[in-house]
Structure formats: C-alpha cells, structure tokens
C-alpha cells in the first residue's frame, strides 16, 4: 500500500527571493509543499463574513490569496516564518492569517473551557512558527501567547516556536519550544 503524500504549507514574509532557501531547508522528499509568499497585491480581510455565508469555505475577495481556507484544510503541517513585530507576526503574515477565516466554521465549540469556532475540516495541523528579528522578552512572551491562541482556534497541534535575531539564523535558533 502506498502512503499518502504529506502536504505542507509554508507562509513566509521574505518575498520570492527567499523561496530557494526555504525549499532547501524546509522541504523534504516525499512531501508536497506549497509556499505562500507576497507576490503582488494582497487585500486585507474586510470582515464581511462572505467566506462563511456567501461562498462557505472560500474568501470572496478577488486576489491570489482567496483560497487559504482550503489550502489549510488539505494540509498536514503549517510552517510560519515571520518577523516578530510588537509580539505578533509581520503585516503580510497577519494578512494571510486574517484571510484564513474560511478555514474555520462560524459555529461555536468549547476548547480548553473557552468558546472557539468549530473546525470546518477534520485535519489537525501540526504548527511550527519561526520568528525572527529584534524583539524584547515581553514581545516574545506575547508572540508565544498569540501562537498558542491561533493553534487553539485552528484546532491544530503546536509543534515548534522559536525566535532568532535574523532570517539567516533561523535554523541556528535551536529547537525552540517543542
């Protein structure tokens, strides 16, 4: 019996010039990987909830990033590479995450005694976040809280968070928090 190919989604803010480096360090043989990169115009989520009540599961905005819901829904692993700004992600990565709203369902459910949105898909994403850039210890703490909240909302499994001073040293940042 043939094993099904693992699907990995990488969201990164380094532009197209970073893709080669990402392919070298984050892609493995036998995995199907897609990199989400800032290639052109991206619109911000306008809070219309069209992705829930007009075209459920798909964003109604017309640009290259309106299928994030299904991309996450069909992935096994999510890797985020982002500058850490004020204890959250860079604007591009935040923008992409905002556009991931169709991944979740409008109905509510309880997780860890809090109300969250129900999962639309059955997958449980294994999530790794590689932050880089100069940030204070307090900003790092906030970034960890943000990632934990995202993983809980996406019904995922937190696998890795690390911080490094620059993009070039991401892989030297050790194993981080696993």
């Amino acid at each position, binding site marked *: 019996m043939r094993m099904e190919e693992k699907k990995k989604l990488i969201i990164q803010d380094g532009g197209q010039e970073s893709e080669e480096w990402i392919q070298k360090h984050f892609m493995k043989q036998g995995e199907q990987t897609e990199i989400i990169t800032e290639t052109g115009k991206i619109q*911000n989520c*306008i809070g219309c909830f069209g992705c829930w009540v007009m075209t459920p599961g798909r964003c109604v905005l017309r640009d290259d990033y309106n299928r994030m819901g299904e991309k996450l829904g069909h992935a096994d692993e999510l890797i985020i590479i982002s500058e850490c700004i*004020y204890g*959250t992600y860079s604007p591009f990565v935040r923008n992409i995450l905002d556009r*991931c709203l169709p991944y979740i369902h409008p109905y509510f459910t309880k997780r860890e005694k809090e109300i969250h949105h129900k999962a*639309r898909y059955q997958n449980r994403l294994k999530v790794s976040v590689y932050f880089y850039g100069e940030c204070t210890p307090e*900003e790092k703490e*906030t970034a960890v809280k*943000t990632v934990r909240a995202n993983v809980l909302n996406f019904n995922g499994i937190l696998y890795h968070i690390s911080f490094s001073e620059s993009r070039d040293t991401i892989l030297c940042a050790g194993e981080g928090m696993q």
Partner: protein
Amino acid sequence: MKITMINGSPKAKNSASESLLSILKGYCNLAAPDLVLNKMVIEEENMAEIWKSDALVIAFPLYIDSVPSHLLRCLIQIEEYARLHGQERTSEETIKVYVVINNGFFQGKQNMPAIEVMQHWTKRCGFEFGQAVGVGGGGMINFIKNVPDGHGPKKNLTLALREMAGNILQKKSGETKVFELNYPAWAYKWQAEYGWRMAARKNGLKSKDLNKRA
C-alpha cells in the same frame, strides 16, 4: 486637550468598534467624528491629526487573535513617524494610548494577546499606555445599542467604558479590563448560530451549506 478616537475596524460602517467609540464619546462629551483607519496606509492629513493628539483611543475587532493586518501596517507607519518626529514633543506631552478591543467569541480574556501587542507598540512609539478594555460578544454590541446604560447585557460594558472615559479626560492610566457582556453564553451561541443560518438563507444557501468545504 485633543482626544482622537480611531476606528480601526476594516468595516466601512456599522462596526462594533464604531458603536463602542460612540458610547465612549458620549461619556467624554465629544462630538468630533472618528478617524477611520480602514485602509493599509494612513494619509498625511490623518497622520498630522494623530501627531497633534494628547490622547489616542483606538478601537478595533480581534482578528485571528490579534490586531487586523491593515491596522498593524498603520501602527508601523505611526511608529516610523514617531521616530522621525519624536524630538518635537517633550516627555510631558507624550501621547497617551487607550485601547478598546472586541472579539466575536464570548470571553473578553481572549483579547489579551492583542492588548499586549498594543502595549508593546505604545512603548516602541515612545507613547504612554493609558488603559485597555477588552470585551467579548462583539457580535451582539450593535444589537444592544438602545439598552439603557448600566442595565442588562450592558452592565459590565458601561462600568468599564465610564471608567475609561474618566481616565481619558484626566489623561490618567487605569487597569486593563477584560470581561463578558452580561448575557448567558448559551444564548449568545444560539443567537449567533441562528444569525449565520439566516444570513446564509438570505444569500440563497441552505443551512447545511455553512459546512461546505472548498
């Protein structure tokens, strides 16, 4: 004292942030229109208004546990401006920042990571943090506009916003307040889910279409 109320919701109108600022403006006796930041870039004249302010009151909805991305871009733009122009203001003239966040879940505490982001941003700009209010049940805020202050579901909200208004007027700092509307969680859940079914039907969909996977 110049107080600038900033609506950071990407929605053009009828946002919960607009309603929350409207309540605060009533308590502060302010009539000036909100400065709306619903684009990715702040126009020059709006930046000048922000820079002339003694206090900024920034309201926004929680998006995927954080600050909406368009507003994050605006915050970075303000920080860059503050770095260039910081020497124009003395430390006594520092801008005081107040934050009002609403989320569509039920618990107010889910706003905490975004509140902390705003505190870190304030520090990086060289501003001073005044107070944060984080409320849950954002989907209900527009529906309780006409409920008298301090009553029913508005009880906690009225207390928190009245206290914040007092602090804004005196340029004082206050403790972070995260709380729920005074409403049962089960009823909020039921009403929200009924609302999604009705909205889907208006768009010619069936209730079960809400479960679609693209």
